[in-house]
């Protein structure tokens, strides 16, 4: 199985590569359109800031390529947010693959921003979460979120509900760091590889 991990200087790709290595699969870090198109599965990691990430994607023509992909695709963290239409972060136009607008969390005394740490998943509805239970913990680090919609396949709360995972056709994405979420995250990555 050929796995392409998209290289757009999105930060923390190494952790995703290591997680795949622990699952016994060899992935290729690449920005080559042909290699990405050819891959059996595509993983779109990401950490950092939306506007600079989109600039980098446009510079490499990936903003045109990614929406046309048809194989199973997994966005992670910022790689999920970028699939939406628009982000409040830097007032940024996104890839428009999924119909959500990314908003900033508003902190209060009990709910800090970034939303950082282990939080539960609810309303799981996808083969991506096979073998998981409601309220299993995964690791989040983010200040912006996608609201809940028809595309939501798992919810988180901080304190209001947000999309912890989304799906549209072959495009799956998780807001949390599956590669850093212990055995639960490993299971999710394995489920994606099994799709």
């Amino acid at each position, binding site marked *: 199985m050929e796995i392409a991990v998209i290289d757009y200087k999105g*930060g*923390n790709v*190494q*952790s995703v590569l290591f997680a795949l290595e622990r699952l016994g699969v060899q992935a290729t870090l690449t920005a080559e359109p042909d290699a990405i198109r050819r891959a059996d599965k595509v993983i779109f990691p990401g950490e950092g800031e939306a506007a600079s990430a989109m600039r980098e994607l446009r510079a490499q023509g990936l903003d045109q390529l990614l929406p046309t992909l048809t194989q199973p695709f997994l966005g992670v963290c910022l790689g999920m947010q970028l699939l939406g239409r628009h982000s409040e972060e830097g007032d940024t136009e996104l890839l428009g693959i999924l119909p959500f607008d990314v908003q900033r969390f508003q902190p209060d005394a009990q709910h800090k921003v970034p*939303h*950082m740490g*282990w939080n539960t998943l609810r309303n799981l509805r996808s083969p991506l979460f096979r073998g998981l239970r409601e309220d299993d913990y995964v690791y*989040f*680090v983010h200040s912006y979120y996608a609201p809940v919609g028809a595309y939501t396949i798992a919810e988180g709360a901080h304190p209001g509900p947000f999309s912890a995972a989304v799906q549209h056709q072959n495009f799956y994405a998780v807001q949390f760091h599956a590669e850093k979420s*212990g055995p639960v995250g490993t299971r999710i990555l394995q489920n994606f590889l099994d799709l």
Partner: protein
Amino acid sequence: MLTKRIIPCLDVKDGRTVKGIRFEGLRDAGDPVALAAQYARQGADELVFLDITATNQKRQTLVALVRDVARELDIPFTVGGGISAVADVEALLLNGADKVSINSAALQRPALIDELARRFGSQCIVVAVDARSTPEAGWQVYTRAGTQATGRGAVQWCREAADRGAGELLLTSMSHDGTKDGFALEVTGAVCAAVTVPVIASGGAGRLEHFTSVFEQAGADAGLAASIFHFGEVGIPELKQHLHSNGIPVRL
């Protein structure tokens, strides 16, 4: 619900764990990777590696260590200790560190926090603050491994660091560190009230109840400790059970 986090801190020197760690079932307690994996299995929520290497080889050994740890570990970890250059931060993050913590370099040039946050995102920039209380000056920030007073108030510096883009604060009370008499509840509470980013409390943990207090009374988001975990005085599974039975949300 977001859980409170338990974070063991490992001191490393020349790529090896220091402080005579005693750990049952671990053949080489000086191996940071084996120790990290052991803590992850026990339920640690995150790890902090504090590099105390003083040689010129520091950068290379630290990057190699980060790579080895990231290859094995499936929970997040932060790396700190003498980090001052943007290039160092970049190398650590690219090799798999989730967060980098800066201390003296931020005090020397606070704009470094803004630069790092803009470049890498706030979520991976931790500002570590070493504070000590004196009767005359209250809680003051110290630098250079706690040897030098800065004249800055702890709460005020924490607020500035958060405003400049720190995504998390690691607040160590030097007045409590090593005492095992409990965390510095007052200053931790004051910092938690002053900022909207997560705060890790450090220094003074000796018993299970100390963690309960720092979460319930001071409002800390995470509790960090070193020797009590390394010497098995407090086990992470029993600590989490204790917190859970006191109604504090933890990942079990």
